[in-house]
């Protein structure tokens, strides 16, 4: 999982205290009502966050803003110290390469093997076939799919697909890991292993944001902070976000 990072960027990132800054952010699709409104929050460098809230509250939309799949319709978003709300699209790929995403529906490419799906971020970043071999084999073994390297997603179970999706998201050791219900299709033991992987990445400096309903997952991560979304807004905009949420203490 070694990755080359330009020295100038390392120096700058060390000085960064915030990975993401949302200021008065709103989002609407087309001409519909706002699905997110007045979002003001910061994600600290190296933080571990759980995003919770009822279904339809806007968790996935918020994550889309975080991994640059959507632009906000109002407000400002800074990622890694750069204002990206209305940045030219040509600059976005470089930022996306610093973000690992675990999609709720996995979004694996059906005609590629598990190996090729996991290797995709490395190849897009310019690694050769020889360079990806070791890290991908290592990652496959870690998620328990060493013997399924050549299997294509349609032949994998839901849990196996989810593990491939997670492996693809973390293979590049991203600066920001965004996961949408990452343990929805895995058993408790695998969920625990995935949480350990996220924690290990977090200890190495990766900021982790996990959208989940899994209370067990939240309670197993004592240092994490909670962001609760309700009706498109942050439910506890004035208080310090902490675990467990203030309302449950």
């Amino acid at each position, binding site marked *: 999982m070694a990755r080359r990072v330009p020295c100038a960027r390392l120096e700058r990132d060390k000085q960064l205290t915030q990975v993401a800054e949302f200021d008065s952010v709103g989002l609407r699709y087309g001409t519909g009502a706002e699905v997110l409104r007045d979002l003001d929050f910061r994600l600290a460098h190296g933080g571990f966050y759980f995003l919770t809230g009822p279904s339809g509250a806007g968790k996935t939309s918020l994550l889309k803003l975080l991994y640059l799949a959507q632009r906000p319709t109002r407000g400002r978003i800074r990622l890694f110290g750069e204002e990206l709300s209305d940045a030219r699209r040509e600059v976005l*790929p470089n930022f996306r*390469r610093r973000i690992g995403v675990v999609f709720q529906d996995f979004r*694996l*490419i059906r*005609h590629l093997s598990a190996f090729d799906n996991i290797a995709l971020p490395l190849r897009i970043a310019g690694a050769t076939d020889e360079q990806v071999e070791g890290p991908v084999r290592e990652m496959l073994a870690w998620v328990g799919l060493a013997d399924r390297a050549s299997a294509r997603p349609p032949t994998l179970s839901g849990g196996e697909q989810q593990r491939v999706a997670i492996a693809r998201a973390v293979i590049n050791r991203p600066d920001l890991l965004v996961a949408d219900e990452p343990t929805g299709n895995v058993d408790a033991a695998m969920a625990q292993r995935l949480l350990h992987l996220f924690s290990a990445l977090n200890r190495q400096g990766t900021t982790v944001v996990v959208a989940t309903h899994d209370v067990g997952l939240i309670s197993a991560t004592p240092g994490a902070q909670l962001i609760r979304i309700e009706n498109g807004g942050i439910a506890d905009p004035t208080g310090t976000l902490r675990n467990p949420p203030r309302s449950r203490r």
Partner: protein
Amino acid sequence: MLDWLFPSPSERRLLGEARLRGPTAWVIAIMSFSIVIIGAAGLALANTAGVLTRAIEARYSIQVPAGGGNVEALLATVRSVPGVNSAAAVPESEMRRTLERWLGPAAQSTELPVPALVDFDVSSGAKLQEVASRVHAVAPEAKIAAHREAVGPLLHSLRLLQWVAFGLVLLLSAAASAAVVLAARGALDTHRFTIEVMHGIGATDVQVTRLFQRKIAIDALVGSIAGAAVAGLVLLALAAGASFAGELTGGATLSGADFLILLLLPLALTALATWVARTAVLAALRKAL
């Protein structure tokens, strides 16, 4: 610069093993066939016009309506003028044979007056005025006509046809480009999910475009070479069975440079299709975030 033509095996797998859907290669083959045939026709017309122009540029006719009593004197006079390279009388029998096509046996009647006709060629420095004054001294009723004036409308038509052929080549190239744009859009729709995933992971537009550009380039190359090969066979068959055409056009044929141009046409079509595909894919990708 051309590294997109040689992707790694993993890059090839990204769009799946199947070739692009649709009849792109067939459409391009038909376009290539038509372009080569029309291009060959255009070049042959240009050569024919050139041969005709060279043949008649310096040629004139002296026509004496009263007949050929003094043809020999006329010939001697014309040949004596400086700058006249050659002069020859058209035999009366030949003119009567020509007239026979319209008049039938009556053309052989001695009662039918046939004018005397003398053709002569001049060099570039020849003085036509002097030729005219000397001719009129021998035969006052004689008329001198430049061949280029008589053949001018035909030459004009040939040049016009040549430009029509050139325009058709351009139109067919545009039609092939439109087919490529449609094929590129179809391919983008087919692989929309893969593109979204690649973009989400940080792929640039250029990285995505490389995948499609190569596939369409291969389709275009296969199609254009196949079409040009069939066109070549058709041209060979036409050339073998049409020696009379050579006589009609004064021996105008396709030169080595013409064949080189015809060989380059399918390659140019491939390059055009590849560029159009790249531009179309990049334009479509720019619509996404």
